[in-house]
């Protein structure tokens, strides 16, 4: 039976330094500021300092199994299984390295399968003893390093809304959680004298500012619309959405590069002179990791992703007409647009491009799972149309600060070509 040892008894901690990085990393690297032309960094062996964090949630579950024997009323053994640790990060998109990327250092490539095997160490500085802040260059005897080793990314979501800052939410799962004191030799963020790593001094403890365009966090104006897009490593990337949305035009190409074109299935640009009015976009995937155990070891050998996984994309637009989704019980009698005869739905390419170099590619096989037309009430509310789309396994997120060991030319691509 699993039970959380810390739920319902919530504790709030203050942290002044959070890193996510390569498993077994022993050095600290500041997040790479994006926003420029496409580039990548090599994060191998490094913990990446996170910026723009809003909150972190840690839940630890212990699994107990009571074992009894015939003839004895009291417990034979209260067997304690391996603990489950879940760490959730919520972060503003701010031009700095994404938590998803920092947690998949060493990934073979940016696809879901490419990132699936990467494991991450999470380390954060937490003051537990006094209500004083953590100082750089001095002794921090009341500071512990919360260390979760060998975690796997388990869920990722991005929320782009018109009325707030763009956010990233990531959840990592693992089986290891330790509280290291400042003088512990296993500490990475502090040395043997509890002095904070100097990499923090010029960043989070210094005059830290977002690295989005105009030194700002990303908001609604940072979604790139129009047919020009942005260029990274000589390839052009444009935001494309399904072409059934009112105001769109068919025949758009989301990717143009030396290797050809792509992301062009039944999709449209968002005209920069109006016509399509996106309200919010939410992209998420839950990897639902499962353990593979082995004889001779208590810890799982691997926590695999049970492919296929669903990748969902919810797009809400301000209604300027209907939802343009027809539903026939026998499907369309003849092929219409991209929809073949006998079907109601077509495949669509989706890509969201942000001006800090974040690119979210959802491939070419996104289909509508539901559509709802709401709002427009008597109180004067605007009518909105919400489309829920899904695909399987197609989820690529690119960013200049990705600590992946790939050259920009091999990274800023159409990964669904």
């Amino acid at each position, binding site marked *: *039976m699993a*039970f*959380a*040892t*810390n*739920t*319902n*008894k*919530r*504790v*709030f*901690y*203050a*942290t*002044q330094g*959070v890193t996510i990085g390569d498993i077994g990393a022993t050095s600290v690297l500041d997040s790479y500021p994006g926003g420029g032309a496409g580039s990548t960094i090599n994060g191998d062996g490094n913990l990446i300092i996170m910026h723009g*964090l*809003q*909150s*972190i*949630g*840690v*839940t*630890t579950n*212990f699994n*107990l199994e*009571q074992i*009894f024997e015939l003839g004895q*009323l009291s*417990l034979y053994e*209260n067997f*304690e299984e391996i*603990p489950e*640790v*879940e760490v*959730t990060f*919520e972060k503003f998109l701010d031009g700095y390295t994404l938590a998803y990327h920092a947690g998949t250092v060493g990934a073979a490539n940016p696809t879901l399968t490419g990132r699936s095997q990467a494991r991450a160490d999470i380390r*954060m500085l*937490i*003051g*537990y*003893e006094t*209500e*004083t*802040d953590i100082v750089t260059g001095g002794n921090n005897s*009341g500071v*512990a390093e*919360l260390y979760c080793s060998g975690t796997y990314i388990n869920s990722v979501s991005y929320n782009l809304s018109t009325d707030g800052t763009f956010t990233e*939410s990531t*959840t990592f799962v693992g089986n*290891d*959680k*330790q*509280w*290291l*004191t400042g003088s*512990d030799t*296993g500490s990475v963020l502090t040395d043997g004298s509890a002095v904070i790593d100097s990499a923090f001094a010029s960043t*989070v403890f210094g005059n*830290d500012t977002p690295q989005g365009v105009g030194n700002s966090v990303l908001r609604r104006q940072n979604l790139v619309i129009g047919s020009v897009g942005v260029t990274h490593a000589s390839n052009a990337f444009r935001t494309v959405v399904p072409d059934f949305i009112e105001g769109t035009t068919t025949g758009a190409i989301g990717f143009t590069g030396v290797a050809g074109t792509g992301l062009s299935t039944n999709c449209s640009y968002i005209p920069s002179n109006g016509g399509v009015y996106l309200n919010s976009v939410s992209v998420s995937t839950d990897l639902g990791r499962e353990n593979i155990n082995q004889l001779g070891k208590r810890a799982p050998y691997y926590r695999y992703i049970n492919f296929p996984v669903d990748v969902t994309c919810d797009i809400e637009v301000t209604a300027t007409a209907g939802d343009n989704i027809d539903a026939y019980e026998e499907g369309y009698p003849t092929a219409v647009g991209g929809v073949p005869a006998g079907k109601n739905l077509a495949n669509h390419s989706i890509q969201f491009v942000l001006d800090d170099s974040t690119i979210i590619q959802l491939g070419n096989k996104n289909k509508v799972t539901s559509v709802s037309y709401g709002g427009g009430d008597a109180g004067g509310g605007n009518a909105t149309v919400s489309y829920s789309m899904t695909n399987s396994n197609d989820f690529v997120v690119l960013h200049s600060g990705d600590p992946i060991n790939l050259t920009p030319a091999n990274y800023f691509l159409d990964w669904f070509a």
Partner: protein
Amino acid sequence: MDKNLINTLLSGVIIFKLGTKYVFMTPPSAEEKSFADFLSYEAYEDSLMDGILTQDEMIQWITDLGWWSKEDEENIETYKDNLDNMKIDYCNNFYHQESKKYIKSTIEKVEEKLRDLVKRKNVFFDKTCDYVQQYCFTSYLLEKNAILRDGSLAIDSFDLSVLFNAYTSELISVQNSIRKTAKSNEWRSIWHTGKNHHVFSNPPSSLTDEQISLISWSQYYDNINQSMDRPSDEIIQDDLALDGWSLKQARKRKEEDKERNAQSIGSDKIQRAGEIILPARNKKEVEEILSLNNAEGKRRLKELSNDLKSGSKTESELTSVRKNIQMESNRMNMNRNRK
């Protein structure tokens, strides 16, 4: 038999006797109080110019002389905290006569100690600018509003200091009876009858401090009686117990506010997490974040601090986690035995 002060408070007129003459201190108008403020501030400034110390400077002076100390100051706060805790204990043990009696006697002793300390702290208050200001304010009002039965000004018949002492002495006895009056049935019926009207003889702009205090206490008792968690009549009648009950409610409300604030942080996933870690950039933010912890959270932080004194720990080595595992194990065992 105690003096009935309801009419005194309704009229706002404080009556005291000097020799064979009755003196009526009528409620001053807002204009008179305004001028008294002006005059008293002038007196304060003048005395400051004359080199008289302010109360803060006086405390510093007696501290320098060793007659007062930082420890004494801390003791005042400690006594106040202890009194609050004891009042809560008194309320909690209200129906255990022996404990109640014991706590009450302890409260009286601590109150006595607190009174002594405060008295010592203010031993030279009457030599300060602040006292001059107070004296000037009251004296002016006495000169203008203290009258005899024949309508003549009392200041024409008595020395100001005599008037001042007799008035303040009577005033203290009125002030000490306000709470008792506020909860008396006689006053409550007047209060409720005139709730939407003005029950006092004098206009709202010239209400005396005692009348305002009576209104506050009356509203306090109204709120207690309307509370969803209303205490028993016996507790309401016992000032100590009711203070304890109010303190308990205030602390409960503070915890609930904290919980509510904490619950609104982050997404559903974060809200469900057992440990929430929030980034802080400076000491103030660290304090604000740590203050979100309720009593249980604070206890766990303390346990973590104790655990880490002996070096690094894995999660399962933490005291709070071991306790939880043990409690869960016991619970599972209990459930099994019930089957």
